[in-house]
């Protein structure tokens, strides 16, 4: 019974990590949607992008070191695994986000990269929500 209870608790904790991943992906998507749709750089866009870039780029020297970052793309094992399933090569999305954040390319090019980043993050959000839902 103790093992069952521990398992229940653990499942709840794990599911909340998937939800955190979906919510963090949504935060970045929201900022990018405004940029693509209206061509407007909202206040907080650069901060969201930087947080996502740092989180996707996060590489630890030691495999057993605690994974802590501001956003949930690389905080826990479940999140890292889900990101790996949807975006096998994280350099791809990092490059797109960096292009938008740098604000050096033409607006059309930035919006194209932002749109593609939205699609990747949306797929990530969708997958995280799928894992969050109670499995039959």
């Amino acid at each position: 019974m103790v093992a069952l209870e521990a398992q229940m608790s653990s499942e709840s904790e794990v599911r909340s990590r998937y939800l955190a991943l979906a919510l963090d992906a949504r935060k970045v998507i929201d900022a990018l949607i405004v940029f693509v749709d209206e061509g407007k750089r909202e206040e907080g866009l650069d901060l969201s992008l930087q947080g996502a870039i740092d989180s996707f780029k996060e590489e630890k020297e030691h495999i057993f070191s605690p994974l802590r970052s501001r956003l949930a793309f690389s905080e826990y094992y479940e999140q890292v695994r889900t990101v790996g399933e949807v975006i096998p090569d994280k350099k791809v999305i990092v490059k797109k986000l960096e292009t938008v954040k740098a604000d050096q390319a033409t607006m059309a090019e930035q919006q194209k990269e932002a749109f593609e980043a939205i699609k990747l993050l949306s797929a990530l959000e969708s997958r995280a929500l799928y894992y969050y839902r109670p499995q039959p």
Partner: protein
Amino acid sequence: MPNQAQLGVETLKRDAAALFSFVDSICQFCVDHDSPAYLEPSQKFFEYIRDLGDATKAYLNTFSEKAPKDPRLYQDYRQKLETIRSGWFEFHQFIKPAIDADTLSMPYPLVEALTRRLNQIKQLEKAKFILFHLDEVNYLQVRVSGLTRTADRLASIIPDARVFPPELGDDRDPVLSVVCLVPKLLDRPRNWTFRVPTARADDEASAESESELRLPKRGGRDDGRTA
């Protein structure tokens, strides 16, 4: 059959209205009432849920109007409703047990006495309890970090929503808050277990480890049965 992008603003309105009803039904539990009475931390918890619910409902009222004009973004925008619903689904599992934990159903003098004792421990001077009253299990562990993680992130994607009250659950603060779980008393002896997060803000890896305070078994025995 029209594709999802062609469903348009009307579909967004309908989806947002359905989610509005869901959030409203949860917040109905937390409306102000004189009876039954609750301890102060529980009241603050309900107040926070009400505020978050109001912000969510205000946002949903304008959700369809703020839809992107670019039809390629329609599905990505619409998916936000599913994320918000999941966030509220997560809250829902805490709210009903908290509502059930009124002062008539709980041994609140005992809880207050234990809280006073706990507050004598260094770094737990300001620890508070939100009480959950459960009848489906006789033991459940709720991590404060999980609750704040969901609340703060949900607040970050809803305009004008505030973060979870630090005094109720900021596990990065050396003075930690505590969630207390008490089972409903049925016809059999139970163990009451209070889980207390350890207060070590300098070591985040250990912030989620917990110490345990176990109350004596009623009648000095435990028949080993569980709910």
